[in-house]
């Protein structure tokens, strides 16, 4: 069973002819998480200052202020401790990295359609699913652009054009906005290219051409 048909419930008249694993995003830690950590630390620092201001105001309210004086030692740590925003930012980031899913993407060719399917199931209920499909008989062209740049930067863009306003567009390899930064961009690059990414295109061009317009046999009934 192909990995696509393990997720998408295809009709028994639709068969997967070929499948290519074009995307593999390994999840886990990324260099951009360091930036995210710094931003979070700053935001939690601001929130700590804001909370400090609110608590100081509460102290001036007669009954509430008297009650808060019992909690003064804890509140002092909460408002003034250097470690509170730092640990909060670390905890949020650790949770994010731990639960981030590994995402795999497949292009599949069936007797009717070309499908692209992304699936990622992480821990703690995090997930990502994306399915796109176009009819083979509508495909008018497939454009691909593969670039291999300085320091091993690889990019592959595939666009499947149809005669309508839809289509399938993929960008794999060293994608991402931070990776485009000059000099430091190399630190943020991560390769999302799957094992069949470059092998797919020559074969897909031929198979799409061969099966284009081969709709179901007229004797088939649903």
């Amino acid at each position, binding site marked *: 069973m192909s990995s696509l048909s393990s*997720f*998408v*419930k*295809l*009709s028994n*008249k*639709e068969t997967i002819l070929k499948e290519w694993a074009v995307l593999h995003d390994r999840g886990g830690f990324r260099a951009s998480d360091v930036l995210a950590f710094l931003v979070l630390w700053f935001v939690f620092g601001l*929130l700590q200052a*804001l909370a400090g*201001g*609110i608590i100081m*105001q*509460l102290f001036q*309210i007669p009954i509430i202020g008297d009650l808060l004086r019992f909690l003064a030692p804890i509140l002092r740590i909460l408002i003034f401790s250097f470690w509170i925003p730092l640990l909060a930012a670390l905890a949020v980031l650790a*949770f*994010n990295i731990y*639960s*981030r899913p590994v995402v795999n993407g497949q292009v599949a060719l*069936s007797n*009717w*359609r070309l*499908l692209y399917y992304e699936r990622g199931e992480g821990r703690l*209920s*995090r*997930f*990502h*699913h*994306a*399915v*796109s*499909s*176009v*009819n083979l008989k*509508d495909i008018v062209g497939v454009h691909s652009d593969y670039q291999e740049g300085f320091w091993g930067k690889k990019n592959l863009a595939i666009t499947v054009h*149809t005669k*309508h*306003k*839809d*289509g*399938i567009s993929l960008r794999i390899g060293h994608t991402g906005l931070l990776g485009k930064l000059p000099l430091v961009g190399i630190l943020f690059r991560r390769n999302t290219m799957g094992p069949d990414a470059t092998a797919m295109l020559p074969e897909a061009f031929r198979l799409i051409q061969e099966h284009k317009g081969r*709709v*179901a046999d*007229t004797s*088939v*009934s*649903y």
Partner: protein
Amino acid sequence: MNQNQSTIPSFIQFREGENFDREFYIAHTTLKRFPLGVIMLILVGLAAYVVPGVILIVYFALRKQKISHGYAAITDKRVIYYEFNSHPAVNYQHMRSLHVEEITGMQFRIDHKFWRKSFWMRLQTDEVAMLVGARGYLSLLKGRGSTKILEPGPDSVEFIQVMSGEVAARKFAKV
């Protein structure tokens, strides 16, 4: 509206010969009583002076939430999407449908990210597209989605599992 009964047939009347099988509860707006925007508003209210913040907390804790619900179904002729909000201040009912025969392409995306959940669907025909949800806040600015970010409902994953194959089957595998 009673959530236990089928929602779409309670709103539209199917003609004889159109077979309705089941509906999927695919999307809704946020169910959180205190989403991030509200929390920020309350914090600003508390920081400005405690009383406005407390009033905001009480208001958001007690108010009836404005949740929109989105249901979808596929019949042997059409794909139907029905969205409604029964809150008195919002109170709308949207119904969109596309003929299965006319569908040329489909895109579905469900994300449960760290910060945000989202459901996005686009069914394309030669002339028009059915857009449900938005892929992110930037897509709202670009006008590439509907007017609100929707979260995936309980049947959303099952819906995209079934939908993609069903539309193709009903389009191609016919006598």
